[in-house]
């Protein structure tokens, strides 16, 4: 096959299946079964579909799949298996930060990105870091408190 589009997905080299103009969210959810990614709006506003592309938070609902050629894509499916990912999961779980849960995977991805660059964020930095993730249930405060209580994970700034 020629014109294969290759990219790294959760640590594995993959080839993009199908039409590169499809939305990245559809490819990841339907072809790779990565259903931690949620569709809340499909218009780049709510952040429920957040993933990391080369370490940056991206709304996968407004990105054509072909745009990830030669890039590194990470989703909550791999983040949650890391030490820091587990701390994020616990921070959300224990502090009352999860209600209906639909915004939460996207929230966790944004928190991961924040902690990579700022391992000890203050309240304002946390609020900034999750400001692209809309939550209609929690009012954000318990999420913010949970993240503020995360202990710094040394040496994992991948």
């Amino acid at each position: 096959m020629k014109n294969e589009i290759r990219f790294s997905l959760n640590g594995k080299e993959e080839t993009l299946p199908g039409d590169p103009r499809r939305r990245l969210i559809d490819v990841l959810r339907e072809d790779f079964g990565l259903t931690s990614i949620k569709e809340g709006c499909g218009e780049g506003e709510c952040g429920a579909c957040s993933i990391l592309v080369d370490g940056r938070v991206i709304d996968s609902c407004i990105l054509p799949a072909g745009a990830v050629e030669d890039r590194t894509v990470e989703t909550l499916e791999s983040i949650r298996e890391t030490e820091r990912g587990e701390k994020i999961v616990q921070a959300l779980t224990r502090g009352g930060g999860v209600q209906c849960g639909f915004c939460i995977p996207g929230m966790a991805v944004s928190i991961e990105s924040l902690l990579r660059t700022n391992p000890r964020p203050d309240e304002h930095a946390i609020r900034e870091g999750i400001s692209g993730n809309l939550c209609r249930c929690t009012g954000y405060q318990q999420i913010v408190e949970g993240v503020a209580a995360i202990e710094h994970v040394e040496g994992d700034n991948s």
Partner: protein
Amino acid sequence: MSHPVEQHPVTKTVERVDAREKARGETRYLADIPFPGRLFARVVRARIVRGEVVARNTPSLPEGYILVTADDIPAGGKNCVRMIEDDWPVFSEGTVRYYGEPLALLVGPDRATLAHLTEQCERAVEFRQQEAALTIEDALLCRGGAIHGTDNVYCDYQVVKGDPDGAMAGAARTIEGEYRTGFQEHVYIEPQSLVGTREEGRVTIYISTQCPFYVRKAVATALGLPQEEVVIIQTPTGGGFGGKEHYPDVLATTVAVALTRIDGPIELILDRMEDLEVTSKRHPSRVRYKAGLDEAGRISAFDVDIAFDGGAYESSSRVVLQRGMFSSNSVYEFPHVRVRGRAVATNSAPSDAFRGFGAPQGLFAAEMFLSRLAREIGVDDLDLRKDYLLQQGSTTMTGGRIHEEVKLPEMLEHVLRVSDYRRKREAYAAAARDNGANGTDGAASAKPLGGIGLALFKHGSAFTGSGEQEIIKARVRIRKRADGRPELLVSNVEIGQGVLTTFCKIVAQVLEIPYTDVVYDDHNTSHVPDSGPTCASRSVAVVGYLLQEAAKKLKGRLHEPGEFEVEQVYKHPEHLRWDAGTLSGDAYPSYSWGVNCIEVAVDPLTWEVDVRGVWTAYELGRAIDEEIVRGQIIGGAIQALGYAGLEKMENPEGRFLQRTMADYCIPTSLDYPGVDYALFDNPYPWGPFGAKGGGEVVFDGIGPAYAAAVQQAIGREVTRLPVTPEYISELVHEK
């Protein structure tokens, strides 16, 4: 936060049973569940506001696509979405009452093709358009002719206490006021979603919903099937707030009709744009007050006229309206009262349930009018309120009794102290006098204008009047499984509010076992009894109590061999009475109470409002899990701040102008500060471990507290929600 009394063990926070799976992204919402062979569906909608279909001109469809219309409703079925009345059709048969009303459902294998075909079908329809009625005034004038009946009035109620006419006639002075609130959209982050299929021959609907038995009733009615022939399975629901109380029925019935032609599975998930545009909203309101004062300046007569915009079909407007009426005296007792309430028909999408259910509108108006009264009479705002506060033994506006001890005075003192209200209120008033920035000349200073405001309120838990006894008749069961674990069989569902955890805690506390031993994961209408819908702050207060009582029957029997069940059926507490004809008696079995205080700074150039502090106190009987209750308090406050200042939805021409989440802004993590709270214990004898409802009271008081704060800051009377910068600018610049 503070704990005025020592915590009961049931109040101690535990880890929510659903949290870890949700935080790991492993919970499967409807869109995440694989359905092999799944087809997709799209609703073909009328792209006019009001009129009649003249010709449909349906284009020919490619192989594999079908168009489902009212003609497909089987004999014995009915073209209606059964709620209270049967007026809302599944598919329009020709008459269009609101923009986006369903004409048909297209089903087929490819989403892109479907989207294209839907547009084609919609463009092919020819209409004769009619003048639309879009406001309460339009409705009452029957603009364009009546939409409903002969007068556009869905219902017209009156509540009378004492002799309001006599008292008003004898009044030395009267004072009036008028208050308005707008639409609010729920914006649950998971859009409306369902899959309809046939399993073992039976129509089976997997759906994101608050009320699986409502869906069952609606689908069975549309198809003309016995209810038991229809199976509804609730899937993990990504937020509801009332928006998934009745609206899922509207979508499920369209897919159910399609299932008479093909077996499915058929997936229907609304796009966000479609969801914003066509789903139900909070009722806009207009509330007029007139108070009669006697010679001594006491309020003797209180006359209220409420109108709610019910939209194009009735849905649950009458019940929402009743709650609005019963909230219109807030937490005050007046001797002579008349409240008239009407829900009217307009050509907007049908209005429906939204957290608070009419109370936020009534309470906003009441609290704002009370501050007008204080100003007009020349007394302190707080002193006036204290003078008329309900207390134990008081007679409510419907002639019921306040049975419980009312802790509002303590709660108020607490909030006044932690917010430093008195000092700030005085300081802001002094600053306004000094620099003349407030009142007459708001724009003169570049310094932010400060204000602080308070609201007192209550919210009745459960259905209105004797609804729990007469309409719902909740039934719960607990099964002792063969493995010794108790399993809860109820129809209430998790929508984020924590009920999966709180119910398990209640039963575990009675049985003295770990809450993680309790099983509660079956949300299939053919497996569980109907314990009623998940709404009206009733899950913990009513169903939780039934579970507590059922668990008592199970106590000491968990080691018995085999499998067996215990059951508990709702019984209305005997001390309560209600006459549904005259709307008199105890309007709700119990009330939860609240005090909110908000401090703001208003920018005198942009009129943006910066919220500086939010202080709250609640009496919810007793909290079943403090962290969950705190989540309701904070989440409710932030959602209500959106309602109070941010969220504007308008349809001046009939179609909503706000069609994306960029147009309709809900609060982000940067918009508001943290929320301070205090819980006051006051165990309620008919609630589980003393608990009452807490899901809605946490929304109710924010609007008026916010408006009162802005009112002080700008020195102008606020009479509308939302209080947007445009509205503030209008107020400041008007003569």
